């Protein structure tokens, strides 16, 4: 476990060494907050946080791929994966270390975004349970997207390719119901489409309903992509 922690720590600090990560984190926080203040807070004077979380949610499809695109692609490009994977760290430990580091770094960004509800709290009386539920929902989506981003990064040695491919998958999961929901299709398929939609699961958690089906949904995405990630690392062994 101490090995996972050592790699995780290095990966976490690595985000701070990456200018791109800073820029995207700033754009993300800046854009979400400006949009929230401009379009939700000022017009209505309503401090309903569901808007805030919607803006956060719809910013995540680009910020998370931007953070994760580097992780494996850069290792492959520099050849440092050979260094990492010949240390006394097995493939699973390497995958999990990078995953936890991503969660920690994004958690930090989300923590910074807490400043907004906190400052709004000084003005009025925010609905804390809803805010906490919203943040849980955001971290659930982040958990899924980070797993996707890392997996896509393990497919290539090019960061832009990793970025674009994870944006496509994340956007797909966010918009699948909007895209396909309007077509008529058999019941089982329309159930599948709405089940796969990240947004739907997020809304129910954000409403404060922690349903095991939603948790299972996120965990299975995480599990699926982490397994794929490990599989792609192992692919070096055959090809």
């Amino acid at each position: 476990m101490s090995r996972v922690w050592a790699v995780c720590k290095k990966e976490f600090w690595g985000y701070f060494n990456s200018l791109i990560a800073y820029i995207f984190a700033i754009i993300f926080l800046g854009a979400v907050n400006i949009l929230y203040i401009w379009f939700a807070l000022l017009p209505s004077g309503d401090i309903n946080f569901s808007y805030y979380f919607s803006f956060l949610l719809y910013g995540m499809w680009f910020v998370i791929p931007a953070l994760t695109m580097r992780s494996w692609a850069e290792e492959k490009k520099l050849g440092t994966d050979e260094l990492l994977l010949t240390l006394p760290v097995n493939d699973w430990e390497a995958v999990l270390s990078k995953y936890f580091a991503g969660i920690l770094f994004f958690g930090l960004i989300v923590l910074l975004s807490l400043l907004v509800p906190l400052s709004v709290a000084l003005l009025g009386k925010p609905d804390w349970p809803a805010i906490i539920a919203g943040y849980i929902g955001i971290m659930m989506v982040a958990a899924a997207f980070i797993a996707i981003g890392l997996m896509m990064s393990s497919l290539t040695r090019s960061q832009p390719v990793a970025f674009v491919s994870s944006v496509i998958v994340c956007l797909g999961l966010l918009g699948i119901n909007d895209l396909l929901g309007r077509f008529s299709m058999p019941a089982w398929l329309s159930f599948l489409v709405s089940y796969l939609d990240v947004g739907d699961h997020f809304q129910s958690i954000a409403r404060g309903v922690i349903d095991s089906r939603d948790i299972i949904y996120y965990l299975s995405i995480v599990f699926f992509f982490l397994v794929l990630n490990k599989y792609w690392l192992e692919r070096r062994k055959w090809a």
Partner: protein
Amino acid sequence: MIEVSGLTKRFGHITAVDNISFKVAKGEVVGFLGPNGAGKSTTMRVLTCYLPADEGRCTVAGFDVLTESVEVRKRIGYLPENTPLYSEMSVEGFLRYIAEVRGIKGEDQKRKIDQMIQVCGIEPVVKMDISELSRGFRQRVGLAQAMIHDPEILIMDEPTSGLDPNQIIEIRELIKKLGKEKTVIISTHILSEAEATCSRMIIIDKGKLIADGSLEDVARLASGANVHRIKARGDKNVIERELGSLPGAAGFKLVGEEFGLLSYEIYGEPNRELCEEIFRTAVKSGFSLAELFHERRTLEDIFIQLTRGGQG
């Protein structure tokens, strides 16, 4: 210390390593030689648990590289080809990271890092980012990284490639020093390097092991290796008669005639040095020798002969 038996590794339909077996005893410094693409790096990657073998079994310090890979990794220090390093980290930060992953903590960690900085001569660059380092310093940081946990076994893939001659000499000295305490495998396609640092050589070509032994053993493997060259002055008939009846010689050939000097190649029986015989014969039969030497074939000759052998 290291046992490889029947190692085979294929990539698609290309066989990179074809049924290689060898053993390395504790304290040996083994040179892994072969042309580019011979399968040196692949073999090393199997030993360091980066790639699994398709067939065969490898054990390191008694641990199987497939099933007990973490135990193997703990005992190996590995310098991969081209020295990949995390370029955005500082030298110090990088060494601390490697130490931490290897479970070296606290006082011990500080002591070992200081020791590596000293042994590898990287004091001047400790605070710098790895991306700013020259090739020579990168290589030393790579070595420091490989040795920080004081491994029993060091595996280095072309440790001197890309260095200037002074740096090459320094790294070789370092390897020699290490070789006194550790089991070392270095791969190279530079023969003088193997000659300078290794006590034993393993030559592989097109994935196959074609020679294994000391420099002398390998030289013996290359056939027709025992050649003496002389330049003699005197009666040609007498000289040739005497050379023909020389004990221990398998034959001779006139290769040149210049200013009355006759140049001959004399082929000795394997492992037989004939210089004194030739000298005595010359004295006895009254011809003079202007030149006499036993040709020690260079590793280059042997290497070329062995690795081109298959093509005739």
